[in-house]
């Protein structure tokens, strides 16, 4: 079948940033959906967001409230979200309470009321909140009477579909309840959950079922803010539309460093610079960014360990143009310090900034701060998370320059932290050495995919203008130990 023929299934926008991509292109029109999840998981807010994104006076949305949260309280809270337009309430969005029918215990009356209201209003969207209070227990009884839930759900789905309605049933279900008939009949099932890990709470969304669609698999984190839900897809669209990096080198802006890496960083690569505290990682990262800005390449810096103003003040001491570049919209400094971030959320913020200013360079300073900023649950799979982060960013064609702090014992060199070397194309390490009773700094290139590079340890200095790479320490042995020894000069043979 041709693609155009398959596209006949029209989609409605969910109104939730990120969700349409997860759903494989939006909500199929006239589908019968279940939004399931525990209390406080965001079901009602999600349903409201969908309604406000789609309802019109001509094709209104009907919101049936049953038992549970009183309608007045629901409206009081929902209207705090920015998507809630009070002007639409009562006209494009109509609230109808079914509690009288439900309390009577008459399921036929419930169905009849939904159908008659649908017939009257000719809505485009119908929401039943909470369906669980109608659906009762799946043991054939409801409010003391026997009833056939399968038949009720079937009839409801038939009616709503024949009235060309896209419908959403909201309910509190546990994962083991997925044999409930509503799961079978539903065309789509969205599962919302929130998990607590130590002091952090992480919300996740899963598309359990989506007939006629190829949704994005897996659990996607989401956040509820004043604007409502925002979903952060695990696989951002940018990954799916990978750009081939340009075959060019980008100067690092660090005198002597380009020479070590074969003429500059390969555009589109992921670079990791590791070193102990005070070794100049952030200084080099800033120099890399400033060098790009100087040749018209916009950039994004994600900082985790200091506020943007602090960063600008510190970096500006050596690079006075930094603040100007930020003002001019050529450089964005993203501050990501909360302790309950998800990787996808971080990635979203960076990607958004990259798109916004068409950036060519991204600095992540530092991975160590990034790891701390993540919710504990994401720290467990930090490597996998970083893999996704770096893979997605480089897929956009940007060069990613990351710093990572390594703790350093003097007699033992650690090249990278977190075992993250596999995700990078280039690794540069820094370390302290003791030479002639003084503390010195050296760096070396450990890895550079597809390019020749220096294999020497080179001394470097942190000057008022930034890092400057000097000579190699050819006359020393044991640099890697941190305490090199001067190699004895070969004695000249006596004639």
């Amino acid at each position, binding site marked *: 079948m041709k693609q155009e023929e398959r596209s006949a299934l029209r989609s409605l926008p969910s109104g939730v940033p990120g969700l349409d991509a997860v759903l494989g292109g939006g909500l199929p029109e006239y589908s019968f959906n279940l939004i399931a999840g525990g209390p406080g998981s965001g079901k009602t807010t999600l349903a409201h967001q969908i309604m406000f994104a789609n309802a019109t006076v001509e094709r209104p949305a009907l919101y049936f409230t049953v038992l549970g949260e009183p309608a007045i309280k629901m409206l009081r809270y929902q209207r*705090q979200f920015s998507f809630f337009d009070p002007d639409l309430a009562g*006209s494009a969005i109509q609230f109808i309470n079914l509690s009288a029918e439900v309390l009577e215990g008459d399921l036929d009356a419930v169905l009849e009321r939904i159908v008659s209201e649908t017939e009257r209003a000719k809505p485009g969207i119908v929401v039943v909140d909470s369906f669980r209070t109608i659906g009762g227990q799946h043991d054939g009884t409801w409010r003391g009477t026997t009833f056939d839930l399968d038949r009720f759900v079937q009839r409801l789905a038939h009616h709503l579909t024949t009235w060309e309605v896209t419908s959403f049933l909201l309910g509190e279900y546990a994962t083991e309840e997925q044999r409930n008939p509503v799961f079978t009949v539903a065309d789509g099932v969205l599962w919302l959950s929130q998990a607590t890990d130590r002091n952090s709470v992480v919300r996740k969304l899963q598309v359990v079922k989506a007939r006629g669609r190829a949704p994005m698999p897996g659990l996607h984190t989401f956040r509820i803010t004043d604007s409502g839900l925002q979903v952060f897809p695990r696989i951002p669209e940018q990954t799916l539309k990978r750009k081939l990096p340009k075959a060019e080198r980008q100067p690092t802006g660090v005198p002597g460093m380009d020479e070590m890496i074969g003429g500059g960083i390969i555009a589109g690569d992921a670079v990791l610079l590791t070193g102990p505290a005070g070794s100049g990682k952030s200084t080099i990262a800033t120099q890399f960014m400033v060098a790009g800005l100087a040749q018209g390449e916009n950039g994004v810096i994600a900082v985790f360990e200091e506020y943007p103003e602090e960063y600008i003040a510190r970096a500006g001491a050596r690079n006075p143009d930094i603040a100007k570049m930020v003002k001019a919209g050529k450089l964005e400094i993203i501050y990501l310090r909360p302790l309950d971030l998800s990787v996808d959320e971080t990635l979203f913020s960076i990607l958004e900034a990259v798109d916004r200013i068409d950036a060519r360079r991204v600095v992540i300073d530092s991975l160590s701060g990034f790891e701390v900023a993540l919710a504990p649950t994401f720290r467990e799979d930090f490597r996998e998370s970083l893999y996704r982060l770096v893979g997605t960013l480089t897929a956009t064609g940007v060069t990613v320059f990351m710093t990572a702090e390594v703790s350093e014992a003097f007699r033992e060199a650690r090249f990278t932290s977190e075992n993250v070397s596999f995700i990078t194309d280039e690794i540069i390490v820094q370390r302290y050495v003791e030479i002639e009773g003084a503390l010195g700094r050296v760096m070396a290139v450990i890895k550079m995919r597809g390019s020749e590079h220096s294999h020497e340890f080179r001394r470097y200095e942190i000057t008022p203008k930034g890092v400057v790479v000097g000579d190699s320490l050819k006359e020393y042995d044991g640099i890697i130990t941190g305490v090199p020894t001067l190699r004895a000069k070969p004695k000249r043979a006596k004639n």
Partner: protein
Amino acid sequence: MNSAGNGKEGLSRDRPAREIVRRLIDSQGSAQTEGDTSARAAAAGDHLYRELSRWVGPDGCHALFIRAHADARNEFPPLGQIQLRAGSEPYMGGVAETVAAYGDTATAKALESMLTHLVELLGRLIGDDMATKLIEQSAFASKRANLTFHSKREKA
């Protein structure tokens, strides 16, 4: 921040809320005989109860009326004889007895005050704009509002 969180500085009883209530009472037809004014006010209350129940549920609506009744009762003693009967038609009972005891004008004023309290209360809970809109939409635009107080209360 919308007005839903503004405490008691909602719809002014002297202006929008009272205005809505008066329009609602007027929509019940014109007074022709003694007792008509309070009967129209009672019919407006019945109608508001029925229409608001559609979206807040009969229990939620009854709770709103109970609170409004309690708020207005101190100022208007005739309300002491008015009964609010959840799920009954008409919703407000004891109107004729109250008219007999206090007169048509005093009873009508008391009922109007109670309804005004109710509109204000709704405004404080969900925001004046949305409360006004929902009442406008349901109580005035509804086809179910076509019956006048005579036909409805006579039916009862």
